[in-house]
């Protein structure tokens, strides 16, 4: 046998749940993930946490350990440390593994690329000492490293979660600078009733906020005009709140204002995408089972539109059910019958999301840079001013602007600046993001050395028992 029945890229909650479902049905599954152990970002190191008091990270994180253990017990081929850098619509996946390039073939492909944090290009955001809340999470989960006396600025559940985790672990936090505009509470209110369908999440969120409020940490609400101060490194944060200007000193500033799908895989595959106006980002166009515009390619989890970890689990199982149908293991009726519960879970999660998305909707002030000097493309060091000049020279869509200014051509392949550049062009042209489009992306989706590519091997699939 030369091909796997299904290859899953990404072993977060969506990928793991799909893999479990498929493997239990007797399908030959390959799972590729960059990390040494499954979990994805949300459950990173959940099964082998270096944090002594792992309960401080919360019950959701602890639940990840159980899923990882279930995943590790099913019969499948799991390539750890496998960095997929080319996904072909012909069912071919190329990935770096132990210094070699491996080629693998599959009939069905499930992409679970997960989410990434929305860049927050405020003045000073590229100074050393400025990181994202997600980076704080990675350091904590992977290596039990924390930054004492940091400022956390922005808005959204992930920001509050890391602040609460720090506080539980006794790590001093200098301030929480919350940028949620007052208007957003009013805008979100009409969605509250439907969000109550998923009252567990809502209760957890409120408890988190209460925990931070009662901890005594300085909280500045409705903050605006944020600027990281410092010459060669972050020395503090300046902002306006409650009618006056503040400046707080800190060596570390963690920024966060929500997450968006990591588009590089799905865009490089040329899947159809659509603009999600509630989440202010692009996402893959897919049906209820995650089937994309290329029928043998499915997507699940945050990489297909932000749904959170529980939503990702449901989407992973749904995608698996549809893949089982496509492989002839289930009839359409069987698939639909097995899908009822997860479809209903997903629907209630999405009601909750609508409330959260509205409350923490990224503001233009934080989503798009305003200071001409602010860098937009960090890899190629292109500032707002550079891009505007390119635009004025006639480069009015993402690809011509890229060709002219080199924005998005660096090692991150536009992962960081893609949404910002598209957002700026939409603003300058006063047109809808759908009209503007996005970068045309190419493989490889990570830097790979000439040595890695020159050692090119094909994965042989063992015959099914």
């Amino acid at each position, binding site marked *: 046998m030369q091909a796997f029945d299904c290859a899953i890229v990404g072993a977060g909650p969506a990928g793991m749940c799909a893999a479990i479902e498929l493997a239990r049905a007797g399908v030959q599954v390959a799972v590729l993930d960059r990390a040494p152990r499954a979990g994805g970002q949300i459950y990173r190191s959940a099964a082998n946490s270096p944090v002594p008091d792992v309960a401080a990270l919360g019950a959701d994180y602890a639940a990840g350990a159980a899923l990882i253990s279930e995943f590790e017990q099913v019969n499948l081929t799991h390539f750890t440390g496998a960095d997929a850098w080319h996904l072909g619509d012909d069912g071919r996946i190329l990935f770096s593994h132990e210094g070699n390039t491996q*080629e693998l073939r599959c009939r069905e492909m499930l992409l679970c690329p997960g989410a990434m944090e929305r860049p927050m290009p405020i003045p000073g955001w590229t100074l050393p000492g400025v990181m994202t809340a997600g980076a704080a999470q990675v350091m904590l989960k992977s290596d039990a490293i924390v930054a004492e006396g940091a400022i956390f600025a922005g808005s959204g559940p992930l920001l509050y979660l890391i602040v609460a985790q720090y506080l539980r672990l006794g790590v001093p936090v200098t301030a929480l600078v919350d940028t949620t505009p007052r208007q957003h509470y009013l805008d979100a209110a009409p969605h509250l009733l439907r969000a109550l369908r998923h009252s567990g999440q809502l209760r957890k969120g409120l408890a988190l906020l209460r925990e931070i409020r009662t901890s005594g940490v300085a909280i500045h609400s409705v903050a605006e005009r944020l600027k990281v101060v410092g010459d060669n490194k972050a020395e503090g944060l300046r902002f306006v709140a409650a009618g006056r200007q503040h400046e707080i000193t800190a060596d570390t500033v963690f920024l966060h204002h929500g997450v968006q799908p990591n588009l590089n895989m799905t865009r490089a595959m040329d899947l159809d995408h659509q603009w999600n106006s509630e989440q202010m980002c692009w996402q893959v166009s897919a049906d209820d089972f995650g089937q994309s515009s290329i029928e043998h390619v499915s997507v699940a989890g945050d990489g297909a539109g932000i749904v959170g970890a529980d939503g990702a689990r449901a989407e992973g199982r749904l995608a698996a059910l549809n893949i089982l149908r496509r492989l002839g293991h289930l009839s359409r009726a069987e698939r639909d019958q097995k899908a009822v519960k997860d479809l209903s879970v997903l629907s209630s999660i999405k009601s909750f999301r609508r409330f959260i998305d509205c409350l923490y909707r990224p503001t233009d002030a934080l989503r798009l840079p305003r200071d001409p000097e602010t860098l937009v493309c960090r890899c190629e060091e292109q500032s707002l001013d550079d891009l505007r000049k390119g635009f004025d020279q006639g480069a009015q869509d993402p690809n011509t602007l890229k060709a*002219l200014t080199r924005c998005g051509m*660096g090692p991150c392949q536009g992962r960081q600046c893609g949404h910002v550049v598209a957002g700026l062009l939409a603003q300058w042209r006063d047109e809808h993001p759908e009209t503007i489009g996005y970068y045309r992306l190419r493989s*490889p989706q990570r830097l*790979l050395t*000439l*040595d890695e*590519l*020159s050692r*090119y091997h094909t994965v042989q699939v063992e015959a099914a028992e």
Partner: protein
Amino acid sequence: MKADVLVIGGGIQGCATAFHLARQGVSVIVVEKDYAGRHASGVNAGGVRLLGRDMAEVPLSKTSMEMWQTLDDDLGHDTGFRRHSLINIAVDDADLGALQVREDKMRAAGYTHERIIDRSELMDRLPHVNPDCVGGVISDLDGYAIPYKATAAFRRAAEDLGAQVVESEEVLGLRRIGNVWLAQGRQHRYEAETVVNCAGAWADRIALLIGDNVPLSHAAPMLMITARMPHFAKPVVGAVSRQLSFKQFENGTVLIGGGAKGFADRANNRTRLDYSKLAAACRTTAEFFPIMHKASINRMWAGLEAYMPDNLPVLGPAVNAARAFHAFGFSAHGFQMAPVVGQVLADLVTGGHSRFNLSPFRIDRFDRKVL
């Protein structure tokens, strides 16, 4: 829309033609089905190469090379051209023998721009080359330019002189009625006395509308570019008998070509890569330049390029219609020729002749072949 000349294809040849025509006061419209520089012109390796040209091309290529030296000033826009020389490396005596044969032929024709270098000069010029290499051949006038920038420079220079470029405009129909060409585009209708076919990988379709058949094929030469590296090679590098080709740009990135081809999906306006062939290109590059082993590849791509069976372009008048001209099929080495091609076409359009011998580039040169 009306103009003296309608140029079909907004690649570098079309934009250069528009520039030279506009400079002579001719009104010109360029129609481009995607955007200017979208295909081969914008995504090629940027080599500005006179070295190793087919004898039939040498006069054109030589003139073009002279034009490149002052092109930025002539256009008033930056093409990114750098004259850093080009060296083709010889790995053994057979390579050196081939170089000697070539040099004798060039000298006999009166050309002196290619010069054989020995191993020690090779090592001086390329200190990181594998010491097993035995010599090479150099052309000092050669170098590189930035493809998209160069195409955009011609386009803007043409626009500065009054030419119009209409993008997202595919030509669906083309007819000669009386003394004018009528073109039906997706957006507009055009009327022009003269039509110039610079449609690259799609030029056979335009030729057919004009009335000329041509055995054009298309392919997708692949390229890779690395992340920035310390500077280690100033000249553009090739090899006499191996698929090796790279250049290091001023920002430190290294562009690796070599001619390996991916899959040209012309119907869908896109290309696919053949990664196992790129893997071979990596091996060759690192074999010649061990410093490249740890270089990191940042992007890989391919462009849609038009090829003729003899790897020589079509350049000259249409044979089956009046007031129509062709320039296409450059077979992956047309970028350097653009300045002179624009000049040749402008001369043909305005005066009916060129000072160059264009007979090797006739569109009907394969018609006369008999089995």
